[in-house]
């Protein structure tokens, strides 16, 4: 339940904004601001923050047994005086937010097979309520599965809602009529816009050329009936390519009736010789009418994407004061480290874009786009002109191997195409900014975002040679088969033999932007690398997955770092104010809400093998101790 507590007179945002105690959506609200107005916890008292409770789901696997490993990136939903979340074993659990005791749980009984991902993944659940209605299924919780089913249960009891699809289970895969190379995995919860569920899906776009074409479905929240479908791959090229799907969160502006969709790249990720035609909706941010599914506008952020630069985060909707006028804008973060600020009514850039010439491909059959769009402002989180360079310490430890490998590879700035000799790619598919996106404080107009500074090696491997290499085509890092392409692919962090990054630190940052002025307010290394238990200097920072939440108390809460710590930062300065160790890296955004008059901050510690091979099943709630 969203309550209108107050109209906030924002300095940057001219429009009133809703204040809320709840956290009813994946990113807190439909604007994906990741902002909680709660102000009990401040920079002055956050040091006293204590664990209120912790809960272990038991749903974890490190991959050493019969089950694949788990990647748990859920952000809990707080609604109906209950905390709801999904697990990587595809269960829904409802907890008492004050005590962490279980109210009910629901088991989808889905097969625990990593059909489209290297791991069993879940990012949580969605919540909907039928305004004014009472009784069974007047409030529902939705959970997607790897096998493409969407389960709807009563929010009070956890019982399946018989009136939704087939006794509470919607088989989304039946709408995949083009090819059935794999199921449309529902790992990200649907985005609930009034009475419509907007559903995207995940697949394995690194594995093959022909793949299910990207689709997003609008579904009736009560019945599960499909209202509309948006398709992102033109009909005529579907036999040769696919995906351009939507695997991450979306945002929406109910007043404009638009849902904002971050669309990923076409398949296969790193070779485009099979799809040299324009695919204008791929790697884009696209606005769609939430009632009809018609495309209102679309902006392609990468032409002919051959880097896996999926648009990977829900755009954050912000109202900016520009020259005395309020501009309804959105901010789209990217893996490339570029921030695009657009008018969310028209899709026009708020700050000018430039089409800059970019390097040509030297791989036979590839036709890289001659130009790419670069925003002139705000400044990027990662330098598009130069990678950080060889780190003397890693080079020393590797007896000069880092330097020799760097010299042997191709690098001509951002958008250097993958090549047979190897390409230094920075930022690469690991980012830049990841799918946690940024958070926006409407009171100050500041936007906070974490970014990784990871250099990766991209290498095309001729098919005959690839066949001789034993590779795991399902892995997100390492070898990708790219079936149907004349090349296989090798992707790995540019590390030395000891696992040290060959590039200079910092490896991750946290940045605050004044969006109206389009400038950085502060930028600091974020997180600490931990190896064998030893913490490296703070100035090195860490790569991150997950994102921040900002609060009305002037505190940023964030996990995301490789060191399995959750932190509180001063929103004004970026200074680290508090931290706690959790079971595994917290690779999602936290949830912040007020329950029975007390402010809670809840982190899920689930881990992600991309950061480190550590899994968790822990959910931890923090609050201030009694005075």
């Amino acid at each position: 339940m969203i309550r209108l507590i107050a109209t906030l007179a924002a300095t940057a945002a001219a429009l009133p904004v809703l204040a809320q105690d709840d956290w009813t959506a994946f990113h807190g609200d439909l604007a994906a601001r990741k902002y909680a107005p709660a102000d009990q916890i401040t920079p002055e008292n956050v040091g006293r923050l204590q664990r209120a409770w912790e809960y272990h789901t038991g749903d974890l696997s490190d991959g050493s047994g019969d089950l694949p490993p788990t990647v748990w990136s859920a952000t809990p939903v707080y609604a109906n005086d209950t905390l709801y979340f999904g697990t990587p074993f595809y269960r829904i659990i409802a907890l008492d937010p004050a005590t962490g005791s279980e109210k009910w749980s629901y088991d989808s009984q889905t097969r625990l097979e990593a059909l489209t991902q290297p791991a069993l993944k879940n990012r949580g659940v969605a919540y909907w309520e039928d305004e004014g209605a009472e009784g069974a299924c007047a409030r529902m919780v939705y959970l997607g599965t790897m096998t493409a089913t969407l389960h709807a249960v009563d929010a009070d009891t956890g019982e399946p809602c018989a009136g939704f699809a087939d006794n509470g289970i919607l088989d989304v895969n039946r709408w995949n009529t083009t090819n059935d190379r794999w199921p449309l995995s529902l790992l990200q919860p649907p985005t609930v816009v009034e009475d419509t569920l907007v559903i995207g899906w995940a697949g394995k776009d690194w594995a093959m050329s022909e793949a299910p074409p990207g689709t997003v479905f609008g579904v009736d929240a009560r019945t599960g009936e499909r209202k509309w479908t948006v398709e992102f791959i033109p009909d005529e090229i579907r036999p040769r390519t696919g995906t351009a799907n939507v695997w991450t969160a979306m945002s929406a502006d109910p007043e404009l009736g638009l849902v904002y969709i971050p669309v990923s790249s076409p398949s296969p990720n790193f070779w485009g010789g099979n799809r040299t035609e324009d695919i204008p909706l791929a790697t884009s941010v696209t606005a769609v009418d939430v009632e009809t599914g018609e495309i209102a506008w679309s902006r392609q952020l990468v032409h002919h994407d051959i880097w896996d630069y999926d648009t990977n985060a829900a755009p954050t909707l912000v109202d900016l004061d520009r020259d005395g006028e309020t501009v309804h804008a959105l901010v789209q973060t990217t893996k490339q480290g570029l921030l695009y600020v657009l008018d969310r009514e028209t899709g026009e850039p708020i700050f000018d874009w430039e089409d800059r010439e970019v390097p040509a491909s030297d791989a036979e059959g590839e036709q890289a786009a001659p130009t790419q769009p670069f925003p002139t402002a705000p400044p990027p989180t990662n330098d598009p002109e130069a990678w950080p360079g060889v780190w003397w310490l890693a080079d020393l430890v590797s007896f000069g191997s880092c330097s020799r490998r760097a010299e042997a590879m191709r690098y001509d700035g951002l958008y250097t195409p993958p090549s047979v000799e190897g390409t230094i790619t920075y930022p690469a598919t690991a980012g830049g900014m990841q799918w946690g996106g940024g958070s926006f404080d409407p009171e100050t107009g500041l936007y906070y975002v974490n970014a990784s500074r990871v250099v990766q090696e991209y290498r095309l491997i001729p098919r005959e040679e690839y066949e001789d290499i034993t590779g795991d085509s399902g892995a997100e890092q390492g070898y990708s088969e790219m079936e149907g392409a004349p090349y296989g692919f090798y992707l790995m962090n540019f590390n030395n033999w000891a696992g040290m990054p060959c590039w200079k630190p910092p490896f991750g940052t946290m940045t605050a932007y004044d969006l109206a002025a389009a400038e950085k307010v502060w930028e600091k290394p974020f997180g600490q690398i931990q190896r064998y238990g030893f913490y490296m200097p703070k100035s090195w920072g860490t790569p991150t997955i997950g994102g921040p939440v900002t609060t009305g108390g002037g505190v940023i809460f964030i996990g995301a770092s490789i060191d399995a710590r959750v932190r509180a930062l001063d929103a004004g300065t970026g200074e680290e104010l508090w931290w706690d160790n959790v079971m595994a890296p917290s690779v999602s955004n936290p949830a912040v809400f007020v329950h029975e008059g007390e402010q809670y901050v809840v982190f899920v510690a689930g881990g992600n093998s991309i950061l480190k091979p550590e899994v968790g099943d822990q959910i931890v709630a923090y609050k201030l101790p009694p005075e």
Partner: protein
Amino acid sequence: MTHPRPVFLSATVVAALVGLGFSVWSYGAPMTGIDDTAGPILTALGHAGIALCAVLFLVMARGRAAWAGLGLLAALLTSVAGFMLMQPGITLSALVALGTLLIGLLLGDTA
């Protein structure tokens, strides 16, 4: 009259055993953030080494310079390791062991 060197070297042993305890505890305690890692195993070995060197220095007639040197080196490295593990218990006990060992060695055998 009590000789100061055995007193200080005994204090070194006690501090190192306390550090050993902290290391073992850290290895098993999830809230430390270093559980199940190699770090606390190394500091446990370091603390055990400090204690052993101090005892051998006291009881052995030969090779005392080597035991003293090894003990100091182990204490120094364990202090640094404890600091990098961000474990005050391990670091502080290693620093106390280092300090008492150093003082004990400087004082000599006589009262």
